[in-house]
């Protein structure tokens, strides 16, 4: 057995216990029901306490970046759907935003509104599904996840009418969106958005006051404000630690400055706060959706995009607030229709940096829910 490695930033001193037990090494994953896919954690356990943790990646490394450096800019769009496969729309938008920085394309008003609508719907899908998975890891097998799936199907139906596909939407284009919503889509969207708060109320009654969730999630996996910034955490993870940083508010990309919404902030940085921040964010998304549907103007949906997308040599980094955090695309053009460098800055991959730090000193069962509260999707972690 190798000795316990105590590495920065935080070290735990494990006294020898009475039985003189050794440190146990456990490989959790890649086939494990609570690692959310093909992710592996190499744990070192003293009894049940985690004394070291090493995340192992790459079981879903699909070479998205290498493939994208072989094909033209518009052809990469469907591949971005498959990065974070719960949130195709926001991935599309992040890529379109970066490409629109390479070639200045003015996005028409209507397209911007449609983008906001689909992005916020995506946030609803992601958050309500993630909370289902999270409490599933806590032991609430099935019920909350089934409720979340039921609501998800309603929103996926909207996406299917709009774009043709349920998950791999491939809907947003450089300079706009692919097609106009068909007749009746907005009405249906309005109906679903109006009915969503009732579901949220029910979901909150089911979960937020539950003593088991409180006991299991509070004070588990704490990240302080300074640590969160130092670890480059983004999205709900960061805001649960008390940092008021939402790219929708900071960058004001698209037309987010026109909407009135608040950014929920947590106070403790534990798993329960991360869960609650997501709950509250869904309410804010509903608020944005109501405003966007109300204000959606008539007009064009595509800007004046060049027929062959051939940017001048240069580089661009565009980022948006995806449901999981900051999703960025770093593109380098060498003047050809094919990107020279195509780099994805995936939020859940970077958020995993803090995993070891959060799990040290906790029980192995807590490591499961800490991983659940990070909200990872392996398609994005490994690309």
């Amino acid at each position, binding site marked *: 057995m190798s000795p316990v490695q105590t590495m920065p930033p935080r070290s735990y001193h494990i006294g020898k216990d009475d039985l003189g037990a050794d440190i146990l090494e456990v490989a959790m994953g890649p086939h494990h029901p609570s690692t959310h896919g093909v992710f592996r954690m190499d744990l070192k356990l003293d009894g049940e306490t985690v004394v070291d943790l090493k995340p192992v990646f790459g079981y879903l490394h699909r070479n998205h970046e290498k493939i994208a450096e072989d094909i033209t800019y518009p052809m990469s*769009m469907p*591949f971005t759907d498959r990065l974070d496969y719960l949130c195709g729309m926001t991935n599309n938008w992040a890529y379109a935003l970066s490409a629109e920085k390479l070639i200045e394309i003015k996005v028409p008003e209507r397209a911007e509104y449609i983008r906001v609508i689909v992005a916020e719907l995506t946030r609803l899908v992601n958050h309500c599904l993630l909370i289902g998975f999270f409490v599933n890891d806590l032991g609430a097998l099935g019920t909350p996840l089934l409720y979340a799936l039921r609501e998800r199907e309603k929103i996926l139906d909207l996406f*299917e009418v709009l774009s*043709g596909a349920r998950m791999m939407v*491939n809907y947003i284009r450089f300079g706009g969106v692919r097609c106009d919503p068909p007749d009746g889509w907005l009405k249906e969207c309005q109906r679903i958005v109006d009915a969503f708060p009732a579901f949220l109320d029910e979901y909150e*009654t*089911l979960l937020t006051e539950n*003593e088991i969730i409180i006991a299991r999630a509070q004070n588990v996996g704490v990240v302080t404000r300074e640590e969160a910034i130092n670890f480059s955490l983004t999205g709900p993870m960061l805001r649960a630690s008390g940092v008021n940083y939402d790219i929708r508010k900071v960058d004001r990309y698209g037309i987010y400055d026109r909407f009135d919404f608040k950014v929920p902030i947590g106070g403790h940085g534990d798993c329960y706060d991360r869960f609650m921040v997501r709950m509250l964010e869904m309410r804010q998304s509903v608020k944005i959706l109501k405003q966007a549907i109300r204000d959606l103007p008539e007009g064009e949906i595509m800007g004046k995009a060049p027929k062959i997308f051939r940017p001048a040599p240069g580089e661009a980094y565009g980022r948006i607030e995806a449901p999981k955090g900051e999703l960025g695309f770093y593109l380098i053009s060498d003047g050809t229709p094919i990107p020279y460098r195509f780099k994805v800055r995936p939020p859940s991959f970077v958020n995993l940096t803090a995993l070891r730090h959060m799990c040290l000193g906790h029980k192995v069962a807590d490591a499961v829910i800490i991983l659940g509260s990070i909200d990872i999707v392996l398609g994005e972690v490994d690309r």
Partner: protein
Amino acid sequence: MSLIGKGILKGMGVTAKNFFQSYYRKERLPTVEYPEEKATINQFSRNFPFLLYDGDDPVDGMRCTACTLCERACPPQCIYIIKDKDENGKAILSPRIFDIDTSVCMSCQLCVEVCPYEAIRMDSAFELSNENRFEGLLLNREELLKPNAYYHEIHPLEARETDDRMAAKAALAEAKKKARQKRARLAAKNKPPPGLKKTPPTRKKPPQREKSE
């Protein structure tokens, strides 16, 4: 500290409500009994591409001209086209081989967007599971060709728009052709010097001339 277990009881209330209401409220019981009931697809759903033909004969009425634009635009490169040749070995505007490998296709619809002849469209058929890897999943030209009526059946709105667009295009082409003929006739009458004949007509001219006469 309030009563311990209150939160759990509240949660159980929610599940009980869901359980009892599932007997009489549709939104609590959304199950679609798929093989007996119709699947949840709608007229905008897409799955795999197919080729359209007009008229009765699939090969004669094929809209595809083997321009290979879709082949080039396909991100996973699952389309394979070989142009047809006539007896003299000259290439003609239709594909002899048009294969789509559905085991690779990512249903992205980029081929539909680039096609200038409205020849390729997305099918919404999904019951394609197969025990046969190579024969079952590699679709050839004959399997891909479907009549326009089928398109109207699965995507009525889109098909109508396509037909309107094609009709408008055909009308424009017809008008252009007529104008060209008329011009030729006029030219034959006036016998202009041969140099003028070659000047290409600008795009807006034909309808104007028609009006003036």
